[in-house]
């Protein structure tokens, strides 16, 4: 999947409060992920978190605070029973409160081979 095919989302966030990103798979699937940050006006991406939802490590990452114009980008690799529906919820919150429209729900169906990949670019404003 190329960057041109990534889903695009915009979120209203406070530029003075750290941003919490939580990844949760709500179906009987395993989701691997990698999350990047890009400062406004630069081309460089920095990995701020990676892991998978089936291990014992937490799937919550704190980053920032970030000003408007910065971007968060994440890749998800989902696997489970072939042809089954999956749902992964990526939640953005600050100070313990979810930001407006901060629950980004990624839904779909894994292929007959039991896999699906998707990418989303989140612009902070």
């Amino acid at each position, binding site marked *: *999947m190329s*960057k*041109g095919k990534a889903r695009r989302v915009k979120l209203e966030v406070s530029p003075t409060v750290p941003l919490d990103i939580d990844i949760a*798979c709500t*179906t*009987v699937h395993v989701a691997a992920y990698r999350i990047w940050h890009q400062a406004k006006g630069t081309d460089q991406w920095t990995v701020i978190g990676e892991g998978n939802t089936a291990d014992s490590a937490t799937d919550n990452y704190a980053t920032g605070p970030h000003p408007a114009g910065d971007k968060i980008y994440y*890749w998800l690799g989902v696997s489970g*029973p072939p042809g089954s529906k999956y749902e992964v919820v990526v939640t953005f919150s600050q100070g313990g409160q979810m930001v407006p429209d901060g629950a980004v729900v990624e839904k779909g169906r894994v292929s007959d081979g039991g896999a699906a990949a998707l990418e989303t670019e989140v612009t902070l404003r």
Partner: protein
Amino acid sequence: MKTPRMPRRRMAAAALLAWLGGAAGPGAQEATEYPEAVPESPAFTFLEASPARIARPSSFRDVGVALINGIDQEGRASQGFALEGTGWNLLQPDLRAYQSDWWRRTLTNVRVSVGTVKATGDSAATDLAVGLNLTLWDGGDLMADRSFTSELGRRLQGCAPDSPGAGTSEECLRAARAGLVKEKARWNATRVGLSLALGSRLVDSELSDGAFLGGRAWLVGAMGLGTWGQALAQGAYTYRPALEGATQYQSGSGGIRAIAGSAQVNGFVEILGERRWGTDDGADDTAGQWSLGVEARVAKDLWLSTGFGDRFAAHAAAPDRVIVIANVRWGVASAARMGMVR
């Protein structure tokens, strides 16, 4: 159901049968009843129907729509209706709940079937059956295995792109999963399955005017023997009350089977027995058989089987009474779920 009496005989080796779905090994072509070991759709098995079109709703709303479609404009049950649903798409637990909670895992894998057929001997009446298939234990369910999902997550991580937009084909993810499934999947895992079916005869197809048509229950347990074999035990019970066009009886069957080989080819030996009692004429019948052979899987749900067996019957009834031979196919695992983890 009456069948002609089967003479005692010995079947020669090289009797080759094409077996579809749930039929038996040697001797299947002579028997008239082929109950599944644990049918995935017990309602259809109870009705002895093979619906060409089955509604498979994936949401509660779709279930409602499908059920409404099974009723005609006059409020009567439609004949030829078939519906099958699983808890997988309806309940949708998360992975941790699925792995840690036996009830949620069992309900997620439950299969419900509902079917209607024209009643024998009365074209205005409809036979309705509702069936339930439960997997009480499945040692081969890889998504229930924490070590499998933990390793799967680690391998999927290896497919992450180095930078946003670098792209990751699904092939990497598929290969990661397929490789791990190949390592971990066990064809002879320990499993316990239960199926139930209840039927009703709807007079004039009226939903509010039904007579109990009987019920059926199947229970199968399978235990792995190393990496090379599997031992299975099966029991089934049937109750059919007296109804117009149908014989009253109760029957119980049981058997054991041993398999050695692989998921594709195996040798088997089995001993089966069935007893029928409570018939209208008071006759009790007992029958049994053994068989020994080799079977090979040539395609999904298509097995070729060869071997030999010996039927024996011990019955107290007169020679012209019913003998029912229990030819059973020992397919314990749900074919659909097995397909999900391959």
